[in-house]
């Protein structure tokens, strides 16, 4: 038997100084690869015009300015459709899409996780299979279905299919399986409580981290939703699309473009910062056992 080294009362695990150093160096290199481009986005947004277009280009900014952000807001105010309309669209789509997804996916997840009914396992496995392929595969026929339903160029086309997004249902079902105690549900059932009431008043309050995870995943996708192929009307387009359009106009708008990228990326990042611990908690039960 190997001799067990201890420090204090804790067992010292197998760690070598060489390994620690190697891992640290690798981690720093990978971290630089991930972080520097993000930093460059922020640098670009703070550069005055002469620093954006200088040779040789400089990575960092010398005289930071918020002029690019001001330009961005000026451009927004000049747009043909009032900018508030784009913001409204994004907020509307995000809120309704997220709420609907959370409700329908949780309802189904509860039944799959906590009720043993004929066909339930088969249905869940079928749904889970769709995690294995990308939505491009179904995009073409989806477009045909949308036209049959008459949903092309309506909010419904962007909002409703997302209610049945698979990842949310999957994460919620897994989380409920591990975190909602069967004994509590059983005693509520014996007391004669209706299943829907048990779902809403007992199960749902027990899975708050999963709620938050579903909200954030859905919100992130809807926020990043750019030019949907289903939407033609300018009045229905999103903030993301509009901001891309006004900053696509060449050299003069490069600064505003960089500013818009910063605005667009800050929102999901902030949301993640706030909710990180809940998301990680939810991911704890994300594993696939069979």
């Amino acid at each position: 038997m190997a001799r067990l080294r201890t420090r204090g009362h804790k067992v010292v695990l197998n760690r070598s100084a060489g390994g620690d150093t190697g891992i640290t160096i690798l981690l720093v290199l990978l971290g630089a690869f991930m972080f520097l481009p993000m930093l460059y986005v922020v640098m670009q947004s703070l550069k005055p015009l002469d620093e954006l277009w200088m040779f040789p280009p400089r990575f960092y900014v010398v005289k930071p300015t918020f002029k690019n952000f001001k330009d961005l807001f000026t451009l927004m105010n000049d747009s043909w459709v009032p900018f508030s309309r784009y913001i409204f669209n994004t907020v509307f789509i995000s809120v309704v899409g997220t709420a609907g997804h959370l409700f329908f996916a949780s309802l189904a997840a509860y039944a799959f996780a906590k009720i043993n009914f004929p066909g339930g396992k088969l249905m869940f496995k079928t749904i889970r299979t769709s995690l294995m392929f990308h939505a491009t595969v179904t995009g073409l026929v989806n477009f045909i279905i949308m036209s049959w339903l008459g949903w092309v160029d309506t909010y419904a086309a962007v909002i409703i299919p997302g209610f049945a997004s698979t990842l949310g249902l999957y994460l919620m079902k897994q989380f409920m399986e591990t975190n909602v105690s069967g004994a509590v549900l059983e005693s509520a059932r014996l007391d004669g409580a209706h299943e829907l009431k048990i779902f809403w008043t007992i199960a749902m309050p027990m899975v708050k981290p999963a709620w938050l995870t579903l909200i954030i995943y859905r919100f992130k996708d809807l926020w990043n939703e750019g030019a949907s192929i289903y939407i033609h009307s300018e009045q229905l387009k999103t903030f993301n699309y509009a901001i891309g359009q006004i900053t696509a106009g060449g050299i003069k708008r490069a600064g505003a473009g960089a500013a818009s990228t910063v605005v667009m990326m800050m929102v999901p990042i902030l949301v993640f910062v706030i909710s990180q611990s809940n998301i990680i908690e939810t991911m704890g039960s994300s594993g696939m056992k069979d």
Partner: protein
Amino acid sequence: MSKTAAPKAVSRKDMTRAQWTWKEMKRNKVAYLMVAPYVLLFTIFTVIPVVFSIFLSFTEFNLLEPPTFLFLDNYIRLFLDDDIFMIAVQNTMVFAVIVGPVSYIMALMVAWFINELPPKIRAVVTLIFYAPSISGNVYLIWKTLFSGDSYGWVNGTLLKLGIITTEIQFFEDADWVMPLCIVVALWTSLGTAFLSFIAGLQGIDRSMYEAAAVDGIRNRWQELWYVTLPSMKPQLMFGAIMQITSCFGFGGVVTNLCGFPSVDYAAHTIMHHLDDYGSTRFEVGYASAIAVVLFAIMIGANFLVKKILSKVGQ
């Protein structure tokens, strides 16, 4: 209600299988009601499209006239008569074979490296690695960094150092397009799988490591292989599925970086081919055949990976 909760369930022996199932179904009406909205939407927007795509792949269909049946003609044309599709398959494979495993191992290794950091520092490092994958189209910064004029940071720096004398047209040069797309794909690849790995590692009971140390595990690599990875197998499987799906779905990013079609079809993937025939040429039958092939490749990749993962820790 679950089976155990039913106080006076008739013994299963007294009934045929069908009778039993029917009784269970009636008893669990509410469960069907609860899954109904989700299942209905899932059927309309996922099941029907998959089934209908398979059907359409055997037909010629232009959206206006009813489809005419062709049997295997679309597939024969695809594999024997479409050189660009072959380029697309090749590119997709190169892309998937590099990005898939590298991003997977990177996600796992980074999660493992940061696992023993103090929680606050770990949260910051997690954010740094995760941010590129959630920030929408922030990946376009690579276009600025590798811009084809001397104001692009890479070209400008190389020119200043005298390594090159004229600018490299990175995103219009067939030799550069694919490697750059792979780098950008890796940059945005630490997503859901990465978070799942972090959570999986956190969930492993520390006493298992102590027991392993007693049993003669000598270094951190043995510990990783014999203790850590086997304990987080479910997360490894889930992460693999997430990585496979996202690396096959990278076409939109490629289009935004290299334009469509990319120079000499150097970054033309199956997804682009599908898009080309589906939404530009409206050859829906042919496009469906492409979609079915892509679908088969993705499902196949998942089963292959599942096989490989079952060897972990042995």
